[in-house]
Structures are given as structure tokens and as C-alpha cells.
């Protein structure tokens, strides 16, 4: 058994000891290159787990391809008739992969996670009330407009506008992260969160109106 000190030394060099053949194996490897055994997941950020650089701009097609490719290799179903230890490793790997992909594929969660990696507990990940007066104002006005909109046409207009706003925020978020302006990114992420809630409300409102017209 390698000692604790050896382990740290090895970890610094980027690998760990394979539980099965005891040889060196890359820290992010799913399988040991010597004996083929599935490895337990190591501490990796969600980006690196999917072989991506930590950044807001992510090629989602690539991320999905990797996610599905890795799942194909390590999903617990592939280990159904293997000993309990290997099944447990497979399950842990699948959990880590699911968590990574679920976080990265959604821009809002991705932004919050990226902020967290940079030491900022994003205000979107807490359910506290907003302190940004500008945002508060904006949200209130939008909600008022929605309440006053009584025709399907008006609601659809508001929905289209909110949709366009959300897309614009995504572009701004990307710019803020690219220029390392984390404060701006944090603010934009909060706005996006509120906009999404609002979009849900407009959708519900539209469906209600549609149904009312359908039965009339």
C-alpha cells in the first residue's frame, strides 16, 4: 500500500493509484490503462469532468457528445453483473457525470457554477430577495404589464419581448465572463433568473387565455 505521503506526491503529479492493480492512473481516467478496471470519480470540476475548459461559452454539442459517450462507458447498467465494488464506482461516476452535465447545459446554472469556482456565491443560487433596485423596478413593471394584458396578442408580444431580452442577457453574460467582470456577470445572472420566472408566468397566462378562447 502506498503511504499517505506517496499519495500526495502522486496526486500532485496528476495521478492516483489504481485500486485494482495498484499502478499509476491519471486522476481523471474512467478506466485504468493497465488493468482496465473502472476507477472511482476523483475531485474534478464539472467542466474538466467533461473534458472542457472552465468558461461560460461551452459548445453544448461537444458537451453532450462527451456526456453520452462517457455514460455509455460507465453507466451502472454496464456493470449489472459485476461485483458490488465496481458497481458502486460506476454509480458514483454516473452521478458525477449527471451532475456535471446538468449544471453545464443550463446557462443559468453554468453561470452560477462558474461564479462559485471563482469564489463568488452567486446571488442566483440563494433564494434571497433582490437588492438591486433597478432590477426590482423592472420586474415590477413587467408584471404589471402582464396583468394588464387581456388579449392573447398582447401576452404573446410580452412573451416575445422577454424571450428576446433573455437571449440578449446570454450574450452579455458571455462578454462579462470573457472580460472577467464577475460583478457584472453576477448581476446579469440574477436578471436572467427573474426573466425566466417571468417567462413562465407569461406562458401560463397565454395557455389560460388560449383555453378561454377555445371554449368560447
Amino acid at each position: 500500500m502506498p503511504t499517505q505521503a506517496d499519495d500526495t506526491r502522486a496526486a500532485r503529479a496528476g495521478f492516483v493509484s489504481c485500486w485494482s492493480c495498484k499502478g499509476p492512473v491519471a486522476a481523471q481516467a474512467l478506466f485504468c490503462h493497465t488493468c482496465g478496471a473502472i476507477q472511482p470519480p476523483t475531485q474534478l470540476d464539472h467542466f474538466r469532468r467533461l473534458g472542457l475548459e472552465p468558461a461560460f461559452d461551452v459548445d453544448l454539442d461537444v458537451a453532450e457528445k462527451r456526456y453520452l459517450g462517457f455514460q455509455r462507458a460507465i453507466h451502472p447498467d454496464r456493470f449489472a453483473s459485476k461485483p458490488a465494488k465496481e458497481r458502486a464506482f460506476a454509480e458514483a461516476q454516473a452521478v458525477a457525470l449527471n451532475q456535471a452535465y446538468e449544471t453545464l447545459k443550463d446557462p443559468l446554472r453554468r453561470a452560477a457554477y462558474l461564479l462559485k469556482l471563482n469564489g463568488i456565491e452567486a446571488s442566483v443560487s440563494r433564494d434571497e430577495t433582490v437588492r438591486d433596485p433597478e432590477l426590482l423596478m423592472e420586474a415590477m413593471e413587467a408584471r404589471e404589464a402582464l396583468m394588464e394584458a387581456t388579449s392573447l396578442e398582447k401576452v404573446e408580444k410580452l412573451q416575445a419581448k422577454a424571450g428576446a431580452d433573455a437571449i440578449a442577457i446570454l450574450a452579455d453574460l458571455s462578454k462579462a465572463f470573457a472580460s472577467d467582470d464577475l460583478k457584472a456577470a453576477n448581476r446579469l445572472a440574477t436578471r436572467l433568473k427573474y426573466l425566466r420566472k417571468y417567462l413562465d408566468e407569461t406562458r401560463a397566462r397565454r395557455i389560460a387565455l388560449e383555453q378561454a378562447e377555445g371554449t368560447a
Partner: protein
Amino acid sequence: MTALLQIHEPGETPEPHAEERGIAIGIDLGTTNSVVAVVDGEQPEVLRDAHGDGLIPSVVALMQDGVIVGREAQDLRAKHPDRVVSSIKRLMGRGVHDVKALAGVLPYKIAASGDSVGMVRLEVAGRSVTPIEISAEILKAVKARAEQSLGQDVIKAVVTVPAYFDDAARSATKDAAKLAGLDVLRLVNEPTAAALAYGLDSGAEGVYAIYDLGGGTFDISLLRLQKGVFQVLATGGDSALGGDDFDHVLAERAIATSGLENLNEAGAAALLLAARAAKEQLTQQDRVKLTAEIGGKKIDVTISRREFEALIDSLVQRTVRACRQVLDDARITPKEIQGVVLVGGSTRVPLVRRRVEEFFGRAPLADIDPDEVVAVGAALQAKALTRGSDTLLLDVIPLSLGIETMGGIVEKVIDRNTPIPVAKAQDFTTYQDGQTGMLIHVVQGERETVDACRSLGRFELLGIPPMVAGAARIQVTFAVDADGLLTVSAMEKTTGIRAEIAVKPSYGLTDAEMADMLRDSLVHAREDMEQRLLIEARVEAERVLLALDAALAADGALLSEEERAAIDSAIAKLRQAIRGEERDLINAAVDGLDHATHAFAQRRMDRAVAQALKGHSLDEIEASMATDPAPGGGRTGRPGAAD
């Protein structure tokens, strides 16, 4: 991390072993009928009785001289109504509390209980039994049928469950299988199994509707399929609508036309049986005679298909309304549906097919027998799990999991439709100075209040070190495995002091109850256990030998001749031990080999570290070490290197 508590102990089920090359079956454990199928060669095949019948009625008779399941049990109903149980699936994972709401609708007596919590029990033939035990009897009959037609022991199975089954119902199903001596490789959702049977996992993309009209229940599920990922988008239906209702309207018509009065229990049962036969004939014929002899009176009523359709049309329309509702919920229009799959014996009724086709605007897929399609899909998945496959079922959790917070409000911990397996940790703290205990209530459902959700279990964290309010950091981890089953574990982070946890599963069996039942049914006799441990030790020893072979092939040059000889002799000792029957000897030889290879492992690590520190990149080191392909086709999966 110390796991302090587990609601479900993973790994306590019998382990499947690499050595046991036994066949795995697929089981549709239905409310009305159960079906078993297997893929022995390439094609799935439903296992039938001597008459070619693939359905085993999910009916259990507890007779004086033993348990009878299936058709025979059904036939005993008229004579022994107090001994025969049917539709038990409706009670799986249900509590006393849930069942009160169903009182009067259920075809069985609920055992009186002073307890208002806990699993419901039935009173059958003067005995108090759990739904799990009744289901286990059905599964034993299914297992027996499989063993008889395959001519070999069967232990491994994939069992299907409705998509909306919550954690309690899923774990009750798994417990029933365990009692029947079956090792469940995987629980699969029924609509997912039906989609698998139609091969939708390969190539099909888009949203599919699975329309399942059985004997007593109607389920409609929307599945999104993309790149081999199956996601249940929405489920709905009516848990009190099915083919039985068609039987009822026919029976009522017969009563009306023949002037029958005051039917007793046995008479009603006989009439319903006749109505069911007539209904099933009407699927093929335009006109049938409903005949029966009840209390000395002969009944002979002729019914045309057209009359029958007029009688059931409003019932069929109810299923269509449920379809519309589910589509609305999922924000999908009928036009966006890529295909419709018919499941359940009642979808044979021509009117049902017509109405489904009208609503979705396309002919449904129905070339596989609708009452066998779920078992066929389960068999395909059983094969995939034991013999490998290219497709991947990435299921999602059907209902959100949450915990109770102040004022009976639910805080969601894992949202519905999250891909599984999944684990989420949540931190809790104390709200009083010196507080040493904490109650955590786990619920499942979409509603915001605890009362409107299912309670899965309450557990108590005890032994929290006394601190000021808010200082303790108790991390509770909710993990849902690939079967959708929940495990909860907890630890106190600031002190690492082990807390004790009392688990009170709301509707499951406690470990002690399970142990008792297993003892009763003698599934796991002592010798079995010993044998299993021996096989396990052998499998582990083989694994050690294979891994060492690979290591020696790659890095054998690091050893001197004497060192190599010492290792070879330890290997020989282990090989010999494996051939023997002594588990302790095998384990000792594994330890011996571990000791003999200690320096070798150390040297391999040292070399890698030295090389890395010399400035070689890890990739180079790996490349230099990966020249010998690993035995068994070991893969190097490196994020970033594979796509």
C-alpha cells in the same frame, strides 16, 4: 465521510456474480395479468403454459393446503371469495392512511389496525398479510413458469413498474422480488419497456405517447427519446378505469334485458366472467351471445359490436380526455407526437384503437401483442444487462423528492425529471442552543405542502454534539440509484462525531421484518449463504490475479528475478486456493499476494512520479505505459480524449 444512516441498504441483495452465467428474465408484474419473457437466442420470447397462454392472472388464493396463483386461483374466487386476492398492485407501497380513501372500491378486506401509519395489511383467509407477500407469491409463480420452460434455475430478473410509482411502491416491488428469490437487476418503467420492445431506442427521436389500457387502470405516458436517452416527460391517466369497466357495462345490459334480480356475490362474479368472455369475442366478431347460468336461471343475451361500442364510448372518451390533459401539461400538441404505442389487453378493443387514432391523427403501433409488449421490453433490457448492449437507458426520477420545512412546506431537494443516478447534499443546522437531535421528514411529490405529498420516511438524527444554535453543520445526502430508489445518509461536518439515526420507514418493511420473511420462505438457507461467500471470494481472487497479470505484463521489467519468483509463488498459492473450497484459505492467499507485490506497486508509482517530475507530461507517461493492451480489452477513458 461516515455514512450514518441508510433508508435502503445498497448491496444487501444477493450479488450477481460474474461466474453465474445464468439467464435473466423480464417480468411485467401487472395489476390484472403478469407476463414473463426472455431473450434466449436473439429474439425475445414470451414464456407460455401448455395451452400457449402467456398471461398469468395476478390472482392469489391462500388455500388450506397451499398457495395457488393464476387461472386456478381465479376459478376459486366464486367458491372462496375470502381466500382469493386480486389487483394487489394497487396497494404496493401504500400506507393505511392512503387506503382509507379507497375504501369500498377495493376487492379485499383491509386488516383493522390501531396504527394510522405504516404499511397496509390485508385480511385473507383469517390471516393478516402484506401486499409484498402477495406479490411475492405471484412472482414465485412467474419464476416457476420460467424455470419450467427454460429447464434451468432462474435468479436474475428485470421487473417493470408504472412510471408514476413512487419510492415506496418501487421498493415494495423490489422487496417482493427478493422474497420470491429473485435478484432484480433493474426496475424499468412500463412505458419505457414498451418503447424498447418496439426498438425505439435505436434511431427513433422525438416524443412518443404510450397508451396503456389494462384491466383496471389507464396510464398515458409521454416519452422523449433522444440519442438513446429515455425521458418520461409526463404521465397521467385514471387509476380506476379499464377493461373491467367494459365488463361491468355489458353485465348491466344483460341484467336489464334478462330481468335478473338480487344477484349474490357468486352470481355477480359468474356474470362478470361471462361478460368478459363476450367482450373479448366482440373484438373479433360483430355479434356475440352472452350466456351464463346464475342461480338456476339461464341468461342468453345477444349483443352486437355496435351496441357494445355505444355502451363503452363514454368510458373510452374519458381516456382521450386524460391524453389531452397530459399533452397540455407537457405543453405538447398531438401533432408533435412522433408515434403512439398501444399497451394493455383492452387496447385490442377496436373502438379504443379508432379513438386513439382519431385523437393523435396517426395509426398507433400495435404489431406486438399489447398485453405482452411490456414483458418483451423487460426481457430485452434483461439481455442488455447481462450480455451487454449498445443502447443506454438514462432514466429520470419521476417525482420530486423533498423534505419538510417549517409550517409543513416542502423544500425540493431533487426535482422530477432529473437524470438518475443522482446525489444531492443539503446542509442543515440546529435552531436551539444545545440541540442534540433533529427530525428529518422525506416526502415525494410535486405539491408544495407536506400533506399533499407522499411521506417516504421520517428519521431522527441523534447525538449531535451540543453547540450554540446554528453552529452544527449536518450534511444530509439524498442519493437515488438507477432504479429510482432513494438512500439517505447523514454526517456532522464540524466535529465528525458520529450521530445515531433512527429510521422509521413509513410504508416499507423493516430489515427485521424482511429477515423474518426470508427465514420463513427459506430462500436463503445457511448453505446458500456460505456458497455465495465462497463464490464471491473466488471472483475477487480472480480479479486480483487478472489485474496483477496486466501489471506484470506492463511493468514486469521493474522486478529482479528473485522478486519475480516470490510473486510467482504467491500467485501459484492463490491459484491453488481458488481450486479448493475454503474461503478463508482464498482470502489468506489474496493477502499473501498483496504482501508479495507491495514493493512492486511502490516501484511502479515511484517511477511514474519520478518521470512526471522529470518534466514528462502525464500523457507521455501514459503513452509509454499503455503499449501493452490491458487484458479483457481494458479501455482508457480520458475526458477530453474521447469523443
